[in-house]
């Protein structure tokens, strides 16, 4: 549906104060607070027909000019019947980096949320198995944060050295 129809539907079902929207050409976004996020996602899935979670990722705005919040979590939803996409965003700040998990709505959110947790340290409440997925379990940092150096802090070279005489 067109942007204003989507806006009207969301306002009717979820209350007009809980979100804002913006539109640029065909890219429509819904920005919600973390407390209202799950309701917005549920409304989009069940009422507006966005049945596929295409992507779930996060952004670190640490050195971004004009940024007001540190992290943003982005949900890319796709309506497989009409091919329409909408991007739902919420902003988070330290120290409370918790967001309700989208796993009850889309099972594909399972590994995507694990990846966001692994790379940024954002906790998804209600996730059945929130642990690291790309880095080893004992890795102690969140690598895609902007204050983590590209070459790491020495974790990659912390192994025993085998010489040829050891066999």
């Amino acid at each position, binding site marked *: 549906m067109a942007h204003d129809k989507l806006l009207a539907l969301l306002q009717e079902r979820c209350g007009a104060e809980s979100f804002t929207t913006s539109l640029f050409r065909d890219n429509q976004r819904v920005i919600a607070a973390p407390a209202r996020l799950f309701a917005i996602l549920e409304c989009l899935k069940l009422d507006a027909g966005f049945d596929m979670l295409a992507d779930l990722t996060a952004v670190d705005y640490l050195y971004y000019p004009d940024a007001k919040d540190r992290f943003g979590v982005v949900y890319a939803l796709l309506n497989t019947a009409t091919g329409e996409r909408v991007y739902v965003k919420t902003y988070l700040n330290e120290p409370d980096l918790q967001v309700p998990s989208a796993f009850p709505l889309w099972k594909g959110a399972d590994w995507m949320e694990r990846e966001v947790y692994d790379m940024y340290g954002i906790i998804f409440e209600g996730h059945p198995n929130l642990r690291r997925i790309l*880095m080893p379990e004992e890795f102690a940092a969140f690598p895609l944060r902007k204050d983590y150096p590209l070459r790491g*802090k020495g974790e990659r070279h912390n192994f025993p050295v085998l010489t040829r005489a050891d066999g």
Partner: protein
Amino acid sequence: MALNLPENVMMTRLDQLANWVRANSLWPMPFATACCGIELMAAGASRHDIARFGAEVMRFSPRQCDLMIVAGRVVMKMMPVLQRVWLQMPEPKWCISMGACACSGGVFDTYAVVQGIDRFMPVDVYIPGCPPRPEQIIQSVMDLQNKIQRGGTLNGKEFAQRSQSEAPRPLALELAPNEAIVAPGDFANATRLRDPQDP
């Protein structure tokens, strides 16, 4: 006194016989983690045939191999696995580090990629390239055959001499963690060192 040997008898040293046998029947353990694995497969296929050099039997069990070819980048999650597989190989064994990523980390100078497997494992022959052509892989097998025939012994005494780590000395350019480059918001200044206090 001249020995009158029949035609089908030859005299040699036991070491040389062992070297000849081992060099011409190197059974590779293809530890292919990434793109170099495809070129390794190409080297084993019919056009560039590594079977001509005796290295046809690519067993995936380390217990049955004597040549480990590390083809591809090795991440920090895989390094303990690589070391364990190397330790499972019986003596005598050799290692070929194939491709830029296994030799030095390649283009991936990041938090997760080990910058060269020779930091933690003994390597005999290095193959540069990204990926190296199959002809280069064959050349490296030939080089390893020369190395075995020049210096090998029957009971593998030459391996016990290599008790020092053969890792590269750290280069002057390797940065300490507090000086490491952090990706800034303005990509024009991304190559300069950043003061950690100044955002």
